[in-house]
């Protein structure tokens, strides 16, 4: 499988980066730092799993940042209202699911191109949230909000478990569940999928809703790292997530992406930011380096034999 080429290339790049860090810095490879990095990039990782599936079907979702912000606020409001933490997490996830479902409905059933539909929801949701909160933070949260009332390390373990399960379920689902295969088939050749009896509309709707749920869950987990909830989190999150999935080898036209690639992409792009600080390189260059990575990753694609346009003769 040619995906392996991309994944290997990524793994090598990450290894090279780590070697550089190990050689030139101290403190990067401590447990605390790695844990901190993990928690800080948990949202990116969780949402990227969903985004991988969206991109597999040949669509895109640029509204995840706005959904994240709203779900964070929902989480805070529920907790402030005195609801038990589990219920709050559930409600936040459901809120994410609903917004994801809206995206899915617009794309799959009303047939608005996903880039336009999610552009519209991105803007409307974020501004709507700002209108509602007027910028105020959510404060006065109960004691057991932070870390669900657990100790810091237990919370970290919980998050690790959640992320691991999500990643594994995502990878396994795509490989071993019928619905997973349908996702890939839909993006690979929608016409053939239709003929094979796959309900492509339902599949597309489903991946958007799933991404919404993951976003909501990620928002909840992220919110409880602190004791207050700001009202404008997740700025630029969609860019991070899409970049990670693209760097991970996904074809934007659909049908080609792997969870492994995405995970490696998230690790590489998230690691860069922190690596810069540790290496003493100015923070100002972070965006430039991330942009360059995206370009290189995709340009390398051009060398990949398999994904040339000739493959489209199959679908004709």
């Amino acid at each position, binding site marked *: *499988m*040619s995906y392996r080429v991309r994944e290997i290339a990524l793994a090598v790049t990450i290894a090279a980066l780590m070697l550089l860090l190990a050689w030139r810095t101290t403190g990067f490879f401590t447990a605390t730092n790695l844990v901190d990095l993990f928690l800080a990039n948990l949202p990116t990782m969780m949402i990227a799993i969903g985004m991988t599936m969206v991109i597999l079907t040949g669509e895109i979702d640029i509204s995840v940042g706005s959904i994240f912000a709203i779900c964070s606020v929902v989480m805070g409001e529920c907790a402030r209202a005195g609801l038990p933490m589990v219920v709050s997490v559930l409600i936040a996830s459901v809120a994410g699911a609903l917004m994801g479902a809206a995206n899915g409905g617009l794309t799959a059933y009303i047939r608005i191109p996903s880039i336009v539909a999610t552009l519209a929801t991105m803007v409307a949701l974020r501004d709507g949230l700002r209108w509602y909160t007027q910028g105020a933070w959510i404060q006065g949260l109960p004691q057991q909000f932070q870390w669900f009332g657990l100790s810091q390390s237990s919370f970290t373990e919980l998050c690790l478990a959640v992320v691991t399960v999500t990643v594994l379920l995502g990878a396994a689902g795509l*490989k*071993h*569940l*019928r*619905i*997973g*295969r349908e996702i*890939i*088939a839909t*993006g*690979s*050749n929608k*016409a*053939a*999928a239709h*003929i*094979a*009896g*796959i309900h492509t509309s339902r599949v597309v709707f489903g991946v958007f809703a799933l991404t919404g749920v993951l976003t909501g869950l990620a928002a909840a987990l992220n919110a409880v790292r602190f004791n207050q909830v700001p009202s404008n989190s997740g700025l630029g999150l969609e860019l991070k997530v899409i970049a990670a999935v693209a760097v991970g080898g996904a074809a934007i036209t659909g*049908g*080609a992406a792997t969870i492994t690639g995405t995970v490696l992409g998230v690790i590489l792009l998230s690691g860069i930011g922190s690596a810069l600080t540790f290496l003493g390189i100015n923070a100002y260059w972070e965006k430039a380096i991330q942009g360059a990575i995206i370009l290189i990753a995709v340009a390398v694609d051009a060398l990949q034999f*398999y*994904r040339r346009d000739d*493959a*489209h*003769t*199959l*679908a*004709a």
Partner: protein
Amino acid sequence: MPMNPILSATGITKSFAGIQALKGVSFELREGEVHALIGENGAGKSTFTKIVTGALQPDSGELVVHGQRVANFSPQAARSLGIAAIHQQPLLFPHLTVAENIALALENGASGWRVDWKRRHGQARELLHRVGVDLDPKRIAGSLSMAEQQIVEIAKAIGADAKILLMDEPTALLTDREVDHLFSLIRQFRQSGVGIVYISHRLEEIQAIADRITVLRDGNTIACREAAGIDRGGMIQLMVGRSLASIFPKHTVAMGATALEVCNLSNSSLGLHDISFSVKKGEILGMAGLVGSGRTELAKTLFGLSPAACPIYLHGSPVQIHSPAHAISLGIGYLPEDRRQHGLILDMDLGENMSMASLDSVCRLGLVHREKEASQGERYIRDLRIKAAGASVAARTLSGGNQQKVALARWLAIDPQIMILDEPTQGVDVGSKSEIHELIGQMAERGVAIILISSELPEILGMCDRIAVFRKKTIAGILQREEATQARIMALAFGHPDALAQETVQA
């Protein structure tokens, strides 16, 4: 052998956007029968196939399967009734493996939420073995060659345990050995009571395998005969409806100097090798051969869509053609095989389509002169007798024949010196067909060197001065007009020396 009909179609009609593809087709398939469906290109065979497999709904008519009348037939319903099809164009998922492609076609909505990879791989291996091919089921479909893709399609159909199997040009891309094996599979199916609809242009194949033959012409069922009781000449007569001579009036043209010459041409990316031929001004060189034998590949090479390894000689001088624009500037035109995708831009209007290869001639200072373009369009509409309301209707609204005329007009507008025509009358009604032939003849009279690629042997035999027969991406032989017969062409195309000895067609 039992004689019960398992599929019976009566009075099927179907039209698309005002074009009537099927005017009243009747067809009956018995259990354990191989029933061939033949007809010219555009006679309606593919449309009928799609209706039987549930991909299209007929406008009227009755379809009875296993004694039950069916209405609102969906592909899933067709599958559940045991109908499977092997299409001309493989419809695979390029990113998935062979095994999964087969599985998705067969699993169809059933069997739970978990995927059993072991079963899938085993199933694929077994089916491929039955087809008699050594293909790794783990290969990604996107990396398969066209022939390999078709094999996967065959495997899908076999696995579907069909009771009714439709095969549309199944041997187009197969080697002789693979064809033999396929035929023995077909005989096995027949033995076990499966009814097979066999669609093909290859008349000797049909003679070899079919029990009955139904002939379609212009969307109508013309005849249904026992295979034993009709020979190829009779088949052609029924398909065409008139004697050959009257359809393809051949102009006698004085030929000029060599316009195009090709010496040991090869194109590694398309698989072409050792191609040599020449075309004189005013000459019509036909190119015959099975689908995939390299004719369109050659056309693409000549037209600059794919680079050749060595130069082509235009009027004696060597040139390397590196793009279609370059080819056009050298006076080469190419009417592509796929009219809807490549020959026209369907959503643009007629004037725009016709001027597209010669924009500079309707431009002033780089700006498009609309009136000039429109009047040019009107002129062609008149001269070519294109049935359209005017030059500003969208190309999509025209019938196949008229669309082809528009596509041809595009090339007439560049006043080419060399014209490559790839299946110019495929999917075109008979009236337009003869008009197009007339236009081709006129071009030859004007001194254009013409390459005519066609799968319709009568057309090639009728129109061409010489015929180059392709086989396996190279030229197997070039026949002069006088010595060319369908049998000889087929012999070269198949590489069967025995075929030369067989009975020839009454022309």
